[in-house]
């Protein structure tokens, strides 16, 4: 019997049934600008300059980020803090801060180099500037505002809620490898967010319930945090080797 159904002639038509069934199935395409996929946990998007919880700028103008930048896209000039109205808690502050996004390769080395966690990368990467002036982000564009939220520029596409993920640094430098540092936040507070919780470690019973192959924003959606704020379809991101 199986020799009949496996014959060349029959299997030729079986192929037609396989494709013929597909139109009734759900589509795999995301309608991109309207419908966005959850972003990977450690995505490197555009930079933000953070502030402390009291509103002081974290940048001290040390230029380490500019020094480490392999694309030479960062330009920093430090200046002494004015004694009567200091901008940052230290001696100096970032007086000029420019990032040329035509050159930036989003390697995150500036974030690693920064001694005060002043510069971090957000998950927002969808910007379509049309001129050099727009491509070079100055302090006015990079610095978070009085609520600790990054500024949205006219050519940037992000939805309400996307800016929650600004401080990718927090997650990127989580001490997941060292058992004694697990669950201990090793970073300072941020304006608008306070001290961000550490990335879930391996022995965290809560984290064990969350499958390893899902996105952080999926967890947030499941927790009800992002519901109704622009994320229409959230699906687990399958990674090779992962799986429930």
């Amino acid at each position: 019997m199986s020799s009949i159904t496996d014959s060349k002639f029959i299997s030729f038509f079986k192929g037609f049934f396989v494709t013929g069934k597909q139109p009734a199935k759900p589509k795999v395409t995301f309608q991109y600008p309207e419908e966005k996929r959850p972003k990977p946990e450690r995505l490197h998007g555009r930079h933000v300059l953070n502030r402390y919880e009291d509103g002081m700028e974290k940048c001290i103008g040390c230029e380490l980020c500019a020094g480490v930048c392999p694309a030479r896209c960062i330009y920093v000039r430090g200046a002494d803090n004015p004694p009567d109205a200091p901008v940052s808690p230290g001696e100096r502050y970032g007086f000029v801060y420019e990032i040329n996004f035509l050159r930036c390769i989003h390697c995150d080395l500036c974030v690693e180099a920064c001694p005060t966690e002043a510069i971090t990368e957000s998950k927002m990467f969808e910007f379509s500037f049309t001129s050099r002036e727009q491509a070079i982000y100055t302090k006015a564009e990079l610095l978070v505002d009085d609520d600790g939220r990054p500024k949205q520029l006219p050519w940037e596409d992000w939805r309400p809620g996307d800016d929650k993920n600004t401080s990718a640094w927090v997650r990127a430098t989580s001490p997941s490898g060292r058992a004694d540092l697990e669950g201990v936040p090793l970073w300072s507070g941020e304006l608008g967010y306070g001290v961000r919780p550490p990335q879930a470690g391996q022995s965290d019973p809560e984290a064990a319930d969350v499958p390893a192959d899902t996105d952080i924003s999926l967890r947030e959606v499941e927790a009800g945090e992002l519901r109704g704020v622009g994320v229409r379809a959230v699906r687990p991101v399958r990674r090779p080797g992962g799986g429930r």
Partner: protein
Amino acid sequence: MNLVAAAPASYPGDPVFAHGITLGVWVIEVVKLIATFAIIMVAVLFMVMYERKAVAYLGNRWGPNRAGPKGWLQSLADGIKLFFKEALVPADADKFVYRAAPVISMVPVLVAFSIVPIGATVTVDGYTTRLQLADPQWGILLMLLASSVSVYGVMLAGWSSASKYPLIGAVRASAQMISYEAALGLSVATVVVLTGSLHTSAIVAAQHGGILYHWNVFRAYGLPAAIFFVAITAEMTRPPFDLVEAEEELAGGYNMEYSSIGFALFYLAEYAALVTNSAFFVTLFLGGPDGPYWHTIGPLWFVVKVLAVLYVYVWARATLPRLRYDQLMDLGWKRLIPASLAMLLIVAAGRISWRWGLAALAGSLFAFILLARAIEVGQAQTEAEATRELEAP
């Protein structure tokens, strides 16, 4: 038996010419000409979208859905974009032939569509005319002629480009088209034998009435219809017979050097041929504008049937992988041509009496067994020779 010649002599042409050619006849013919051209052009624009949408749905995608309502203006936008691009001519190209080739592939398709009947007759202001641009005596031969001539468009395009990939693509195309022309012609001949006329309107009229069983697809026992379908797919170099434009091997095929209007014309010709040949499939085998019920809405039936046939094309494209060249030639020469010959014999004998039909069937089966044995022996010999060559020091 006078199978072909008897009927056409008595079969009337378009009744509009019955009372001489007056101004009214001129007006009607010009209107029909423009309408036919408009139909084929709109059909092409529609078909491009229809195919892209259908093939997307068969692959779990949405297809183009940005330009216009639900994306249905995408092909129009593509066309406008193409016509505003620069028309490049390669330096070594034969300029005249290079420019003429797209036209040579476009015109036969348009000519062929003019004999497709999309309805019975209409009467306007006392003039009764058929719903087809032309109803010549040689009728369906025009379709075979058109498909033969369109080989030249492809061949000349590949040759005049002075580039190797287009040339290889064109050589493949011409060999493929000529191979399948035989099977195509023989399956059309089956229908002609059944009808006793070359007029497309007569072929349609013979299939009229009743519920489906008058259609040639049943009267010719199905196989010629299948052969015709496969043959025109190969004739148009549609997938799975699109070795002509195998991207992995030929970087695009015979139209690789073309841009702008030349490329657009090839594209138009390809899809116009698709629509026209589907229309011919409906005309020859599926009863043309005849439906199982409501015989008065002929053109609507026609459109529905053409859409169904077009969907099968797209479905096949989404399903079947491309054939290898030897598989293509095997299918054409060793299977389709003998099968269509046998079906022509059987149908013709069946027109005389059922005894003759059975005799032809038996003879065909015997011939098939012989042929299968011959192919087997030949292949074994070829393989043995190949092994000997491999093993030779």
